């Protein structure tokens, strides 16, 4: 049997050829692994993976990895791939250089990103026009194109902002993202893919699998932080003949995109883990619930499932072990509450995604009233490594109660927007300043928000907080799914709290009154405050409502919705007071509380502001100068953009 490896398996024709292939045995998978590794092993440079080294083929071969994650794809990385292909044909390099589209490398701010192996060099913000130069200078003459050169990722002596972004990370869940072609199952197999599954099916009992997961200390990465092994044990305890394994890929937390990255960059890691979970709890059917907003992820996951079926890794007799497991995809339709597990189950059943009271927990009565295990994508992405390398290896990372690594989606006012995976317990300061490259434009760090609409903010004074489940809870925030939004001095904390409440009001399913009515009342108070109509007692009302909503809401959405308000009140109470008492917004965000003024001394009397003001609020002439009528002014900011000497200020 031929297992000839093709780098071009992403072209639909070769996928079709693969259809109808026979089930692969463990030995046959081993052969695929060996043969594929001989080709792609040259990518296994040390820096961004977890300490393991592979064989490096030093025979003049190169692999050019072009990021095709959502961020880079939005900056047209597909055209870059085409251009590379044309250039290498033009230079007669097609037999030595492979252009590979890969998943997200995490450095989204500098996209489109290209990595060249085996030298492990990164190019940033690559444009189609740069491609010819990269081929001629770098590939043919060994000279980096300095203009867009991001650095040698293996080089540690002269770290740059970009090499530090990678070298301070530790990748387990994202280990293959950016390293393999996610549309090619053989590449996943080459880097030890489906090896954990083989180990479990042939050498471990289901109980031993659960034992290993429990011993690793892995906790749910979707937000709750419940011990994963215990969840698996509950589902395994039931003697029902039919059970389900679900994956929550309804990543609704705004600003968090690690689950999408796994789906786009390493979909087989999820599939392998779900089969392992099925084996451990005795389930034979799984569903992945994916949000519709992720078209690329959906496409790659569908393809991966098809490839796994063709290799007999999904189906009735996996690797000849006799174990059966099938996997389907269910689409979300844009409802944040469906990230809550009972709501997610209702949505998979085709209903309105409203949560129901627990108990009974899904492990007892879940999908179609059968015992059901639900984990989040990132949780699953850790499973195969734990089974393969052992719980002790995994639990060596992290803190006493938060083991392993966590992926954070770092965004907002930070230089290196993107995905970072770090051992639990790394401080916020390290994430923002060492890995994230600090705050742009010389601005001051003000706060970071973790946990999205369910979480809270961390002020500058607490920058040394270790990022783990318990430390974050202790300061009134939470891990959530790992969204981390950085805010600088231009962000108004009252406005941010209002922003999150607008989100939860919109996304509340309406089933329970504390959430449906209570959050709305809180939002109305915040709207008054930001409109300059705050009054004494508002802060106390907010606090009282928050406590009632937290303790009486039906599900996690309502129980955590007041957190952004409570947390900003805790650390930035003075801002609330300034809004209410002094009618002042120091960040100059709340429009009703600011005024525009022309500084007469700086004004050159050119009249551009008056010409462009959309509401005619600026009067005067070139002799006497200009004035803004604050009653007419709508604070749109057009005049500031037009004024050549920057003579317009905001008070």
């Amino acid at each position: 049997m031929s297992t000839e490896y093709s780098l071009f398996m992403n072209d639909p024709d070769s996928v079709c050829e693969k259809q109808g292939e026979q089930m692969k045995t463990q030995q046959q998978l081993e052969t695929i692994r060996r043969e594929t590794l001989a080709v792609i092993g040259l990518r296994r440079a040390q820096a961004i993976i977890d300490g393991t080294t592979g064989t490096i083929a030093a025979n003049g071969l190169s692999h050019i990895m072009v990021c095709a994650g959502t961020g880079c794809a939005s900056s047209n990385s597909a055209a870059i791939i085409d251009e590379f292909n044309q250039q290498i044909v033009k230079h007669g390099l097609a037999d030595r250089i492979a252009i590979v589209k890969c998943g997200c490398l995490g450095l989204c701010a500098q996209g489109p990103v290209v990595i060249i192996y085996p030298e492990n060099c990164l190019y940033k913000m690559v444009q189609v026009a740069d491609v010819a130069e990269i081929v001629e200078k770098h590939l043919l003459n060994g000279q980096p194109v300095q203009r867009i050169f991001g650095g040698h990722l293996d080089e540690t002596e002269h770290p740059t902002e970009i090499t530090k972004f990678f070298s301070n990370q530790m990748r387990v869940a994202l280990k293959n993202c950016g390293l393999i072609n996610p549309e090619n199952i053989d590449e996943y197999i080459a880097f030890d893919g489906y090896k954990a599954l083989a180990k479990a099916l042939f050498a471990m009992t289901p109980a031993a699998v659960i034992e290993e997961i429990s011993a690793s200390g892995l906790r749910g990465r979707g937000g709750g932080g419940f011990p994963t092994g215990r969840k698996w044990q509950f589902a395994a305890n039931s003697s029902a003949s039919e059970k389900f394994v679900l994956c929550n890929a309804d990543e609704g937390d705004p600003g968090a995109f690690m689950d999408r990255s796994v789906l786009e960059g390493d979909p087989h890691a999820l599939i392998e883990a779900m089969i392992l979970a099925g084996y451990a709890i005795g389930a034979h059917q799984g569903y992945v619930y994916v949000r519709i907003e992720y078209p690329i992820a959906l496409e790659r996951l569908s393809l991966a499932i098809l490839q796994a079926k063709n290799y007999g890794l999904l189906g009735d007799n996996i690797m000849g072990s006799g174990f059966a497991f099938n996997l389907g995809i269910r689409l979300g339709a844009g409802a944040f509450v469906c990230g809550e597990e009972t709501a997610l189950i209702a949505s998979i059943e085709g209903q309105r995604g409203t949560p129901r009271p627990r108990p009974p927990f899904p492990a007892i009565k879940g999908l179609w009233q059968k015992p059901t295990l639900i984990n989040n994508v990132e949780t699953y992405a850790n499973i195969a490594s734990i089974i393969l390398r052992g719980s002790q290896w995994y639990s060596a990372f992290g803190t006493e109660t938060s083991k392993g690594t966590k992926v954070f989606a770092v965004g907002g006012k930070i230089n290196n927007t993107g995905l970072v995976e770090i051992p639990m317990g790394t401080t916020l300061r390290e994430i923002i300043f060492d890995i994230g490259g600090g705050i742009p434009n010389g601005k001051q760090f003000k706060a970071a928000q973790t946990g999205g609409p369910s979480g809270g903010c961390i002020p500058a004074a607490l920058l040394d907080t270790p990022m783990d489940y318990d430390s974050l809870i202790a300061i009134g925030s939470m891990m959530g799914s790992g969204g981390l939004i950085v805010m600088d001095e231009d962000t108004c904390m009252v406005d941010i709290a209002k922003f999150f409440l607008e989100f939860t009001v919109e996304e509340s399913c309406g089933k329970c009154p504390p959430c449906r009515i209570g959050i709305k009342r809180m939002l109305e108070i915040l709207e008054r405050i930001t409109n300059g109509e705050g009054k004494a007692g508002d802060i106390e009302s907010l606090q009282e409502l928050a406590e009632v909503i937290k303790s009486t809401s039906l599900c996690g959405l309502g129980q955590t919705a007041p957190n952004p308000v409570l947390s900003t009140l805790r650390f930035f109470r003075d801002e609330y007071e300034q809004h209410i008492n002094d009618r002042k917004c120091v960040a100059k965000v709340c429009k009703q509380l600011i005024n525009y003024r022309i500084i007469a001394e700086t004004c050159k009397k050119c009249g551009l502001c008056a010409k462009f003001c959309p509401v005619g609020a600026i009067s005067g002439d070139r002799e006497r100068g200009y004035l803004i009528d604050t009653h007419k002014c709508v604070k749109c900011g057009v005049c500031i953009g037009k004024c050549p000497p920057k003579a317009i200020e905001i008070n």
Partner: protein
Amino acid sequence: MSCCCKNTYDERKARLIEIAKNYKSTKGSLIAVLHEAQELYGYLPVEAQEIISEHYGVPMTEIYGVITFYGQFSLKEKGKYRISVCMGTACYVKGSGPLLDKFKEKLGINVGDCTPDKKFSLEACRCIGACGLAPVLTINKDVHGRLEPKDVDRILALYE
């Protein structure tokens, strides 16, 4: 709606009946049927709901309940170009609010509405995960990133 393409309408109807029947035996597939119907019609008009009700076999009330629950489903017609401004947190702190306001002002419509000539419709959408490009918006399948309100004219001109 007065429309000259009667045939297209009948073809859509036949296609939707087929979709509804195909899914009928799959437990819990109403959301999938609605996704396909919306793909076909661009939104979910009453006639589409009636076809689904009849051929998939669920009451109209249940269909309406599901449609109005999920943000992705629309009962209103969309424009030829659907502008969705991302309101995820990363985009918000980088100024997607003023960006959205500028679109409202330029197009003279509110979020959820469509221009009278059916050319543009405007939506505020949930995080699309392109936070590295914040603030970001999509117009149909095109993604535009790192925008400021002053870019609005330039973007709209691309779709003239």
